[in-house]
């Protein structure tokens, strides 16, 4: 049978899903054990026990200086920035995308502008953000907003244009004004697409967040990683990276579940 026609059954699918993760972990811990056997003070590939100790210190015991539980404090700060940045981006992207994609008079000036703006590398203007908005929360949130909004807006504009013109004509024959047409026909059809776009932009949003936190911050997951880098503290960095990955994956999964639940009519929701 050709390879293209062979499908894994349920149990072997689970096995295939877990296999690469198991292999990765196995390779790491073999390497770690070997290095630690050569040199017990090696910091590059810490053992599970060392990482467990580090997590216990950061997550489950109060910091002796500030009294905070560092991991949770970092997570809360980072997630707040991320949520704020993504929330503002979603709202702005939706408004811009609908305006540019539905109203030709708005699309003419907006569409080329969004294309150009989405090409600006956000990290290149990070210094400008720090100069303009200071080193506080605002500049970090703004980096996410500036990085994510143009891409969201462009995607939603494209989706708005893909709504068949027949539907727009039909809505007008049902007595819709421009405003009610956008509100009741275009907006609800774009909402599931917005959630999908957000899922695709999650990776970039985390990138911008970590970058901003690494450069100027006093807490946050990115800040912590770049802080302990000075001490070659891989036993902290690796659990932090795993934790960030887990958070990002959970957000992706949550958005997917929300799309499926809130928009049962949407075909793409199953993807």
């Amino acid at each position, binding site marked *: 049978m050709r390879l293209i026609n062979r499908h894994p059954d349920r149990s072997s699918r689970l096995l295939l899903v877990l296999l690469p993760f198991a292999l990765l972990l196995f390779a790491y811990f073999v390497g770690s054990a070997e290095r630690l056997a050569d040199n017990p003070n090696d910091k590059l590939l810490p053992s599970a026990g060392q990482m467990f100790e580090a997590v216990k210190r950061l997550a489950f015991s109060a910091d002796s200086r500030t009294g905070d539980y560092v991991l949770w404090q970092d997570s809360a700060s980072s997630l707040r920035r991320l949520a704020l940045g993504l929330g503002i981006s979603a709202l702005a992207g939706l408004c811009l995308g609908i305006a540019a994609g539905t109203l030709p008079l708005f699309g003419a000036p907006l569409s080329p502008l969004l294309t150009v703006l989405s090409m600006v590398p956000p990290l290149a203007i990070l210094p400008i953000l720090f100069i303009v908005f200071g080193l506080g929360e605002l500049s970090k949130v703004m980096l996410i907003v500036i990085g994510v909004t143009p891409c969201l807006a462009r995607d939603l504009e494209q989706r708005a244009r893909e709504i068949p013109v027949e539907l727009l004509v*039909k809505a007008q024959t049902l*007595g819709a004004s421009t405003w009610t047409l956008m509100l009741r026909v275009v907006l609800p*059809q774009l909402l599931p697409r917005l959630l999908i776009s957000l899922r695709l932009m999650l990776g970039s949003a985390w990138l911008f967040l970590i970058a901003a936190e690494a450069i100027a911050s006093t807490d946050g997951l990115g800040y912590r990683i770049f802080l302990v880098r000075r001490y070659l503290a891989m036993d902290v960095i690796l659990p932090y990276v795993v934790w960030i990955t887990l958070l990002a994956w959970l957000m992706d999964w949550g958005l997917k579940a929300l799309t499926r639940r809130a928009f*049962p009519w949407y075909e793409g929701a199953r993807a």
Partner: protein
Amino acid sequence: MSFISVNNVWQRYGDQVVLEGLNLHVAEGEFCTLVGTSGCGKSTFLRLLLGQETASKGQILLDGQPLAGEPDASRGVVFQRYSVFPHLSVLDNVALGLELPRSPLLGRLFGKAKKAAREQAAALLHKVGLGHALDKYPAQLSGGMQQRLAIAQALIMKPRVLLLDEPFGALDPGIRKDMHQLLLELWRETRLTVFMVTHDLSEGFSLGTRLLVFDKVRVDPHAPGAYGARITYDIPLNSARRKALAAELGATSQ
């Protein structure tokens, strides 16, 4: 005076002439079927009647008034595809037509008004045979049911003109027959003026009270776009139905 008058209407896109010198007078309540080869301008003519496009020359009068240059509630439409809103349930697809004109700010009704609109929509849906599917989404309906929904959606607005662009083109023959029955029934009841584009000649002959054939009279082989289509045949059909219509209209006008 005729209900719809088309006076010397031309439509051209760039150098391409699609319709030339169209003249037509249609009485209220007529059921016109439009036939002709592909690309001969039937659908263009329908879009002109709908207001989706404006004629390059000439004018179309509806009840003596020039036609509004954009689609509005006076003319209902059913397309071959994409006629219903995928994000609304069957019931809301029809109720939408009651909600939009009455709520200019939010486009939706609440409380009692919403309930009344939904009841009215449900009654119409029962009539077109969708009473069992009120809560389904269009994607869960068969092609024929989707077109029933699209027709109900158009009729809830009580338009004076109903425009149908190959509405049954994608349906299989059995379903198509049912749809013909439904359409004729609704037409008799509402006394709408109907324009229906079709590729199916027998459908055109059996449904209409008037058959309009679109064709190019002049063809220049060196410049295929130089001349447009006209109405080459205008055939009165189904005289019994026509008489019934005339009698009914006469009765109401007295």
